[in-house]
């Protein structure tokens, strides 16, 4: 540090002098930096590019639509590819996507789709019925390609493209989801060359050829996903010049970035963050009913289609009474009040109330209410009595000590785990909360007893129901199936087959409700809550954005590309341009100065103490 800047009049001790100099310099620098440190939104860059930056935390599992199951990946696919049909932002009804029109034959076994002529792949080639037919045929013939969305094509007999604008799908049995096939259509000329669809992750060659409203231009694992708008998109080009999904593995960092204007949007806010952001200027908090359910899953004994059992789930969980007792000893109301602090709705059936047509509620005598006394009675009945130490032990001498898989990235998992430990501990049940960054490995291997589970539900419930059917189990213990939790229940499967084949909306809804009732009774998936989508965006960067449903809906993870496609940039009045780079520089300088100051103080103290020692 340059101590010379301080006038040496009173001859202070060298240490005090150094400290003073450091303090003054640091202060001066920080003061000078104050303006650029808190800049107006840094949306506009010198070249007039308007970037929409979205903070995300979930890792991409795969960029191949054949494999991707996570919300962030399917959101990316909605942006870069088109499905045959899309969901209306207002009320979720099916509207044209790549197909402009769809018609069943009188026997409802042959569906004819008219493919639009004004959709082009980003490399200039026309998107045709041929591409769609190829996509479906590949999923029907290649098991790897059926990993994520195989349930949609399991009932397809034949898919052909008699002309570039006509796609014909023949079915084995009637299928209700024909206007809700959530399958991205891929460019045949790009994907034909791919060898093994089970291994190809579509993340080697950029930009990725697509025909959605955005074009994926770059991706770095857990760092960013970048998009350019597709200027020729048939529904109209997006209004921002760039879309970036930027990774913030820490929620607090994402919120800090939002406060500073480095990102335009952040989701998954904690109640405290939502409350403090609601008071902030230029930030709008969106607290909407979510499309997710949040459940307690129990391991029903992991197995594969070939009948092999694997994993090490606790055998006591095979007893339905134990599963019911666990749920009866889980106070959902406290979870809503204390953990979600009101930003959620108490769980009932499998499908969230937002999808009112399919939402189901158990009636009074079916409902497993919070009742620790009943839970204790159920456990006694099941043969798990308390021993002298107060632990419940089965006839085989094995105590009821469970493990629960928790996502280390989701604070709610950990918090609810704490409550469960106490509720269940009172009953004599031990619980070990295993929070992991990557829960997939033990999960797929069936090495868990209980797990915190959640899925985003589509307007058409077929997919989230299909993941609990026997057909979704992995073929062998080594494979990965579409199954969520290794559930395989005959009655559930029968109902699933019926609802798939039911074209009458009311009757189908009734079947879907019966399925939920069955799932509720088995106790494999106990829905605790429907968390709200608590998210926030900067109004000085995004002037308008479409929620889904339009009134009181969410923004991140919609059933469509509406939010990011519709986002309108705020008027740019930032004339000082080029702030971005200078801010980084200033932050760098300030950090260096502070670090140097610390070092000098440290050295000064060291020297002083050793000098003292030597005297």
């Amino acid at each position: 540090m340059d101590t010379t800047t301080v006038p040496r009049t009173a001859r202070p001790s060298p240490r005090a002098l150094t400290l003073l100099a450091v303090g003054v310099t640091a202060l001066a620098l920080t003061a000078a930096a104050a303006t650029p440190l808190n800049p107006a939104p840094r949306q506009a860059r010198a070249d007039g590019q308007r970037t929409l930056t979205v903070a995300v935390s979930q890792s991409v599992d795969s960029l191949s639509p054949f494999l991707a199951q996570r919300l962030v990946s399917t959101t990316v696919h909605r942006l870069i590819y088109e499905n045959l049909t899309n969901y209306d932002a207002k009320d979720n009804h099916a509207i044209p996507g790549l197909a402009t029109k769809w018609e069943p034959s009188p026997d409802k076994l042959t569906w004819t789709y008219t493919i639009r002529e004004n959709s082009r792949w980003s490399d200039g080639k026309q998107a045709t019925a041929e591409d769609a037919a190829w996509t479906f045929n590949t999923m029907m013939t290649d098991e790897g390609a059926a990993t994520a969305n195989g349930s949609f094509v399991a009932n397809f007999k034949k898919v052909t493209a008699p002309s570039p604008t006509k796609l014909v799908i023949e079915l084995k049995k009637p299928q209700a989801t024909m206007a809700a096939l959530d399958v991205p259509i891929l460019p045949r000329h790009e994907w034909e060359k791919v060898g093994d669809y089970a291994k190809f992750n579509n993340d080697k060659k950029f930009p990725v050829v697509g025909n959605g409203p955005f074009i994926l231009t770059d991706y770095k694992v857990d760092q960013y996903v970048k998009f350019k708008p597709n200027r020729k998109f048939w529904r109209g080009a997006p209004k921002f010049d760039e879309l970036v999904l930027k990774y913030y593995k820490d929620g607090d960092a994402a919120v800090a970035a939002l406060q500073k204007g480095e990102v335009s949007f952040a989701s998954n806010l904690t109640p405290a963050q939502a409350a403090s952001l609601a008071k902030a200027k230029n930030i709008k908090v969106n607290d909407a009913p979510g499309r997710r359910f949040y459940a307690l899953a129990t391991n029903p004994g992991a197995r594969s289609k070939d009948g092999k059992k694997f994993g090490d789930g606790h055998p006591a969980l095979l007893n339905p009474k134990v599963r019911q007792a666990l749920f009866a000893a889980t106070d959902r109301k406290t979870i809503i009040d204390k953990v979600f602090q009101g930003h959620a709705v108490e769980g009932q059936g499998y499908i969230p109330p937002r999808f009112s047509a399919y939402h189901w509620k158990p009636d009074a005598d079916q409902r497993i209410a919070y009742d620790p006394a009943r839970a204790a009675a159920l456990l006694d009945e099941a043969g798990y009595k308390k021993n002298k130490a107060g632990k419940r032990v089965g006839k085989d001498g094995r105590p009821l000590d469970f493990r629960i898989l928790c996502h280390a990235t989701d604070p709610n998992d950990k918090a609810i785990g704490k409550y469960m430990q106490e509720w269940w501990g009172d009953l004599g049940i031990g619980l070990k909360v295993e929070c992991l960054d990557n829960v997939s490995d033990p999960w797929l291997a069936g090495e868990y007893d209980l797990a915190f589970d959640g899925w985003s539900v589509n307007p058409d419930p077929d997919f989230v129901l299909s993941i609990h059917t026997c057909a979704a189990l992995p073929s062998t213990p080594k494979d990965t199936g579409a199954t969520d939790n290794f559930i395989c229940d005959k009655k559930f499967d029968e109902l699933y087959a019926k609802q798939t084949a039911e074209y009458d909306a009311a009757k189908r809804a009734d079947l879907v409700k019966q399925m939920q009732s069955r799932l509720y009774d088995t106790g494999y998936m106990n829905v605790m809550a429907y968390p709200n989508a608590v998210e926030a965006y900067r109004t000085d960067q995004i002037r308008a954005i479409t929620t889904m449903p339009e009134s009181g809906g969410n923004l991140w993870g919609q059933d469509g590309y509406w939010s990011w496609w519709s986002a309108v940039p705020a008027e740019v009045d930032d004339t000082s341009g080029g702030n971005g780079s200078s801010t980084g520089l200033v932050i760098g300088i300030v950090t260096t100065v502070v670090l140097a100051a610390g070092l000098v103080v440290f050295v000064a103290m060291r020297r002083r103490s050793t000098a003292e020692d030597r005297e």
Partner: protein
Amino acid sequence: MTVPSTAAQTASSLAWARRRGSVARFWRAYRTHRAGLFGLGALAVIALVALAAPLLVGSDVQSVTNAPGAALESPSGAFPLGTDQFGRSLLGLLIWGARISLTVGLMAAALSVAIGTLVGILAGHFGGWFSTVTMRITDWFLVMPTLVLAIVLATVMSRSVWTVILAIGVTSWPTTARLVRAQTLAVESRPYIERATALGGGHGHIMSRHVLPNVMPLVLAQTTLGISNAILTEATLAFLGLGDPDVVSWGGMLQDAREAGAVSSGHWWYLAPPGIAIAVVALAFTLCGRAVESVLNPKLGVSAR
């Protein structure tokens, strides 16, 4: 040491008198270090609070189902440091957390110093190829970033307090080993060791009766200094989510604060107390350690007195 065995009574009473004398001498020297006294005072207060925690706050303070307050209340009369996201009193948690932080700090430092002393004495005593091999292993541990190694260990093993103690203990011993080896070499070059060997003293006897007492002061100073490091590492591991999720520790509190979004929502009273507590304890141990070191370390001590 050369007293005949027939006079055992006198020998032991002599030894005791000598020990009393050296403790008194140590204390007189220690008293002159004002910073050391401050550190000792702070430690005494914190240790007292930690020991009396069951009386002061009770283990009920950890319970989420019986939490008395609302979520993230600001400091008030009922909750002097406010509440966490479960409505638990942060002051209670801070006091309760002191137990874990201190226990882990002490035990990890003890483990690390024990390993270091053993390796150091063995390497210094036997010398030759054995010393070369052990010292190369020590070097390897020395250049490995301690925190990274501890993170790897804590990730691989199951989440518990013992894992954290082990992870810190087995990663931070190399400095002690090197110091102790140097001191062992210095001690063993003295003539009385040669005499003891001539009188029939074996390896074990030399190492435990002659070398160990002479490296003990160094070990003591090293332990005191090591504790503050261990406490900081424990807090770091807990903050990174690698601690035992079932116990309350200061690092764990910081992690909880982060998860509740306390940083970005400006709930400073959640973050500051555990952070300050960690800093104070680490500082107190460092002050004590430095004072002890300057009293006992022959290299620093001779010129100081």
